[in-house]
């Protein structure tokens, strides 16, 4: 990533979109919209002082909504280019409210609310489409209750929970427990505020609130307006403290998730959604189970799948290693339903096809191995660029020329072509680069021919 940012031959147009493509192989005219960040990229040092002061909290897309960011943000800490961006949908200043705190904080004077989108015209010989994929939305499978049970997460959400730079710092804190902790924090803030107000009143009347409230309830001070307000405030304070203590008691029993279930083929190999196999999900479930076991050695994992497809160099050995060293059990069977049991524990109901029995098992957390779906904007992108799609909306290629699209001079690599893992994406990218280079070098080759 760093190499790309530094490479003298690569012009990085991040936060940009291709708007129009005209021409043919060897001579394409491309229009690119460089969306404004409202931050001068060459001035921003990436120090992050603006984001510390920004009052607007927004769910963080990089952390799959499990963490927060501000309206001015760096997409992720090591992001390239290392500049900040203002989110125009949430920024107070850009939505007509009074703010501009970031501009006052920024010592580099990089913030410019008047900066507009720029249109860049490029002339290129070849185009490589590497638009990637989207994670399948498991909310479309009602029986897995992804939107209802907080401790049912997708594999990429789990990946962020595992990451040391993620929202939990690498601890397997369950989403339901994190919600309780967040509620405790919010209530504590409320209590601190009301305590402050009560302190002032106690000082004014020179009496502790509890003693006063007893007298008030016994019928004293009924005509005193100030004391009436004091009593109301104290009652409201008590109303917050009780649920807070309850939640704190609950939170004291929280531990990290130790019993994990991984459910394979969520959206793929399913005739309701995508009949194809996404290829990499078996392996990432094994990997996530292994890493979770590394973080917490008591972790046990069950991987539920029709079969485990470990096809690749070293993959089968990896699967066996997971079973031997990382407490992973491979269960052959398709999960029929996930329900919620006590303590927000998901209960998985499945058919064990080896024993031909329907079983139920309780877990701390369930991870869904979601299908590799085409990106949402792929139809629009394909139309802009001028390439055809296949029946699943991946970019159409043929088996004998797997990186050539239907249009000469335009190539494809990575999951925009079909589901594939990282090593395969890298190999296909090099292949697409070589095909594009053939066209890029064409004028030189022709010149050489003419000389010869």
């Amino acid at each position, binding site marked *: *990533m760093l190499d*790309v940012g530094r*490479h003298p*031959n*690569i*012009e*990085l*147009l*991040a*936060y*940009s*979109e*291709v708007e129009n493509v005209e021409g043919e192989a060897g001579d394409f005219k*491309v229009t690119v919209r460089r969306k404004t960040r409202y931050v001068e990229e060459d001035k921003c040092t990436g120090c992050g002082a603006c984001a510390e002061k920004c009052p607007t909290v927004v769910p963080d897309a990089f952390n799959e909504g499990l963490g927060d960011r501000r309206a001015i943000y*760096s*997409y*992720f800490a*090591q*992001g*390239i280019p290392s500049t900040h961006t203002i989110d125009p949908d949430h920024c107070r200043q850009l939505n007509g409210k009074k703010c501009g705190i970031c501009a006052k904080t920024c010592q580099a004077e990089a913030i410019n609310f008047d900066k507009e989108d720029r249109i860049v015209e490029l*002339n*290129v*010989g*070849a*185009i*490589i*489409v*590497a*638009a*990637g994929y989207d994670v399948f939305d498991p909310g479309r499978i009602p029986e897995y209750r992804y939107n209802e049970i907080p401790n049912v997460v997708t594999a*990429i959400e789990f*990946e962020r929970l*595992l990451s040391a730079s993620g929202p939990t710092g*690498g601890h397997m804190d369950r989403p339901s427990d994190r919600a309780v902790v967040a509620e405790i924090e919010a209530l504590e803030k409320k209590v601190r505020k009301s305590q402050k107000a009560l302190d002032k009143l106690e000082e004014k009347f020179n009496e502790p609130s509890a003693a006063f409230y007893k007298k008030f309830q016994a019928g004293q001070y009924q005509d005193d307006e100030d004391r009436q307000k004091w009593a109301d405030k104290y009652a409201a304070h008590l109303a917050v403290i009780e649920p807070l203590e309850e939640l704190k008691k609950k939170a004291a029993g929280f531990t990290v998730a130790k019993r994990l279930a991984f459910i394979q083929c969520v959206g793929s190999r399913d005739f309701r959604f995508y009949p194809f196999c996404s290829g990499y999900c078996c*392996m990432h479930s094994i*990997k996530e189970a292994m*890493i979770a076991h590394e973080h917490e050695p008591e972790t046990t994992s069950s991987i539920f799948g029709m079969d485990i497809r470990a096809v*690749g160099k*070293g993959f089968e050995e*990896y699967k066996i290693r997971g079973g031997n060293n990382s407490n992973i059990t491979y269960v052959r069977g398709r999960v029929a339903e996930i329900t919620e049991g006590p303590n927000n524990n998901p209960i998985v109901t499945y058919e064990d096809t080896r024993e031909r029995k329907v079983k139920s098992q309780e877990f701390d957390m369930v991870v869904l191995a979601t299908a590799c779906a085409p990106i949402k904007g792929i139809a629009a992108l394909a139309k802009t*660029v001028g390439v055809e799609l296949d029946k699943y909306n991946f970019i159409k290629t043929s088996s004998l020329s797997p990186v050539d699209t239907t249009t000469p001079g335009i190539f494809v*690599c*990575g*999951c*925009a072509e079909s589901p594939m893992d*990282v090593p395969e*994406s*890298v190999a*296909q*990218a*090099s292949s*697409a*680069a*070589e095909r*594009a280079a053939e066209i*890029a*070098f*064409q*004028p*030189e080759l022709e010149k050489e021919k003419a000389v010869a």
Partner: protein
Amino acid sequence: MTKDVLVIGGGIAGMQASLDLGDMGIKVHLVEKLPSIGGKMAQLDKTFPTNDCAI
């Protein structure tokens, strides 16, 4: 004179294609929709089958 190449998408595939082309001496324009390059792989903690760091 060699022609430039446009790469759409700054994930692992787009980055690898850009680097290969750049190393061949070809000028590359890498367009990414999001504020930073890296794509899905930057979100991953580790990669199989070696459990190497993704970033």
